[in-house]
């Protein structure tokens, strides 16, 4: 039985400079994986490849054994910025993500998703009326509306204050608990990576491959000040310096 998401021998270059060389990673169904690495090492580019937004130059990305060549419903992506449609209210922004198959039960599905991200009372608000944290919650609900098997998160909380970020991390865990998507999270926040994920993947210098994989074998919910987490934190910092 092969993994849900396989990144196999992937290489990619941008205008002459090679970003990845022979990158390999296998992600099991329902796993939460964090990608960390130095700034500019191509973490976000890797997500774009998995999402099918950019083509790979060699190798293959497969979901359920099918190669990814273009964006598709099986993979959802949440960006660093909310990227909400400013002309749609919260409800319609979430509904935007619905797959055609779910259009018939649209109202119920959207109501359920708004409930999940605790925005039921804000359904009629426009994006300009939302705080940063609320906007990212809408973006999360919209990404979930497509029922993706793989949910990619590209530094989704990096623009938020520490408190909001912690609340959203817990929300992501709740979503993971309720919907069980396989998650690939790019972050520069080591605590976030350790708090959320089953495995933390460290990407090396350009042209990057997987430098190290750190497993976090701790049950959830985790204590942010857990001694073992702090130990792993030291290990991660050593990898990154």
């Amino acid at each position, binding site marked *: 039985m092969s993994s849900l998401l396989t990144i196999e021998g992937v290489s990619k270059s941008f205008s002459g400079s090679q970003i990845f060389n022979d990158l390999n990673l296998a992600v099991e169904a329902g796993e939460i994986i964090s990608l960390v690495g130095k700034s500019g090492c191509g973490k976000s580019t890797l997500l774009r490849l998995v*999402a099918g937004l950019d083509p790979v130059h060699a190798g293959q990305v497969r979901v359920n054994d099918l190669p990814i060549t273009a*964006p598709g419903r099986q993979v959802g992506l949440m960006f660093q*910025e909310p990227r909400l*449609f400013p002309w*749609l209210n919260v409800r319609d922004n979430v509904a935007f993500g619905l797959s055609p198959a779910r259009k018939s039960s649209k109202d119920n599905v959207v109501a359920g998703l708004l409930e999940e991200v605790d925005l039921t009372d804000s359904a009629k608000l426009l*994006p300009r009326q939302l705080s940063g944290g609320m906007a990212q919650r809408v973006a999360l609900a919209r990404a979930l509306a497509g029922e993706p098997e793989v949910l990619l998160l590209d530094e989704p909380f990096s623009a938020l204050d520490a408190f909001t970020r912690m609340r959203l991390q817990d929300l992501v865990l709740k979503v993971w608990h309720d919907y069980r998507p396989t998650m690939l999270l790019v972050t520069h926040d080591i605590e976030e990576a350790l708090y959320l994920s089953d495995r933390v993947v460290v990407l090396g210098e350009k042209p990057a491959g997987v430098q190290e994989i750190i497993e976090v074998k701790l049950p959830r919910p985790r204590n942010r000040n857990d001694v073992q987490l702090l130990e792993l934190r030291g290990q991660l910092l050593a990898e990154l310096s």
Partner: protein
Amino acid sequence: MGRLNPLVGLILPAIFLVLWWYITDIAHLLPVNQFPTPGRVWNTGLQLFNNGELFRHITVSLGRVLAGFAIGAVIALLLGTLVGLFRPVERLADPFLQALRNVPSLAWVPFLLLWMGIDEPPKITLIAIGAFFPVYLNLVSGIRQTDRKLVEVGYIFGLKPFALIYRIVLPAALPYLLAGLRIGLGQAWLFLVAAELIASTRGLGFMLIDAENSSRPDIMLVAIITLAVLGKLCDWLLQLAERWLLRWTDTFKGR
């Protein structure tokens, strides 16, 4: 700054009216046969209104403006969408359209008259030409201003090209399109007068030329004021539509 009463917009016209009245009626600084008093213009206007003549000219002109504007705007919507979306179409069509845009409005008149006769078609065509360009240009730049990041969201959700256009690109271009429509409508009135000045037997432009022939500056001013009021009303209607359609925008609205 609290909400200002919209009636403050009437202060300047009122001052203007008083000055006009003072200069012509009190100080007699201008010869009345060239520059009639407000009272005279009011009476002439009332007379033209009561005998139905003014109303008849207004209906004819308004009909022409709306027909020409609708035709020009619809063609601009189609062409602008194609040019904005597809670079090959832009390469193909834009230079030609830009060249046509630089033809002064009056240059079309003799040709259109020769080609289409002196009836409604040449006038409506001229107005359509006038309305076309602002709508076209604004729509193209609006489409090109669409945030690439929003289009990417569409890709992520696997939107087909047509859905991408009407669900993301066109809504994003809407502020520009509406600005273009407002300018286009203004242009339509401009080109209307150009058309009616030269060949017509009805309409506000004809009223002007007819008044010139019979040396009636009071009638001219009635026509000019009517044009100002009608133009303002039309723009106001579009402005209302704009405000409602763009209530989602998060832009500086002035202090």
